[in-house]
């Protein structure tokens, strides 16, 4: 790989896609706060829903899905690009999961009266947060690139296998421990303009995710090239 022409050109400005994502999110937030009706029973705090649900969807299905798939594919193909994809998905996914875990209790306090109730999706997010954090810590503690990629891919795959077990455990736990009736914050029967705002929010946060992934992936590529170049000095 030639070091005189790096495939990732040092960017002077913010990546266009990331900028678009940031503006899209700003737009979605504006619409959610000022141009969407207030929910009758939950009041203003319900509007956290427009950040919480898109972030949860992207964190659990897109980011973690990418992590699991690229880990599995790396074990099969051993392509370093898959490892960089996994690394990026893990880090950006952790950010999205953090938002889910912070906005969930803030919203939950107004709806449920308590900060935490072991809600199925929040619990799964909490577990994945720990697992992904562990994965990033593991990566940080291994310097050799091939070993780091292999170990990380193994952990990613095992994490994917763990997910159904967490699901089942939480389900069994909850059915045998009946909880008080809980308002279902993500009821599918949303009035029209609220549904539109939700869809716009999902699209915006997805765009932001793609932007962040692109920047993060490029960073990983450039870092590996740099290390290879420095290593040969």
């Amino acid at each position, binding site marked *: 790989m*030639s*070091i*005189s*022409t*790096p495939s990732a050109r*040092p*960017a002077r400005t*913010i990546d266009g896609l*990331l900028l678009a994502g*940031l503006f899209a*999110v700003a737009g979605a*937030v504006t619409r959610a*706060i000022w141009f969407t009706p207030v929910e009758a029973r*939950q*009041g*203003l*705090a*319900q*509007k*956290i829903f427009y*950040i*919480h649900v898109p*972030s949860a969807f992207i964190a659990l299905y897109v980011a973690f899905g990418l992590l699991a798939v690229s880990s599995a594919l790396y074990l099969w193909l051993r392509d370093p690009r898959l490892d960089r994809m996994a690394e990026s998905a893990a880090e*950006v996914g952790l*950010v999205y999961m*953090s*938002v889910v875990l*912070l*906005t969930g209790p*803030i*919203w939950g*306090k*107004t709806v449920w009266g308590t900060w935490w109730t072991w809600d199925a999706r929040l619990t799964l997010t909490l577990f994945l947060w720990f697992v992904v954090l562990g994965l990033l810590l593991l990566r940080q503690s291994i310097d050799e690139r091939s070993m780091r990629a292999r170990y990380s891919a193994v952990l990613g795959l095992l994490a994917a296998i763990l997910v159904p077990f967490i699901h089942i455990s939480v389900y069994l736990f909850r059915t045998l421990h009946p909880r008080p009736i809980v308002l279902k914050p993500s009821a599918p029967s949303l009035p029209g303009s609220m549904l539109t705002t939700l869809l716009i929010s999902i699209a915006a946060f997805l765009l*932001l995710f793609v932007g*962040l992934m692109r*920047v*993060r992936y*490029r*960073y990983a590529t*450039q*870092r590996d090239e*740099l290390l290879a*170049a*420095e290593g040969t*000095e």
Partner: protein
Amino acid sequence: MNLVTPSNGQFMVAGYVVAGIVYFGYTVLLLRRQRALDRRWRALPAPPAPPSAPPPPAAAA
């Protein structure tokens, strides 16, 4: 304003602000890491002169 229990609206603001801090903060972190990497890249000693590639053919006049 009730000083003991935050109002419903204040919870909403808290939620949005917290999310904003996390997302925006991570974006800033990414950009700063990128900038540090760029600095290290520029600090690399100049590579040996690459083989000169033939210039692309000029567009037909």
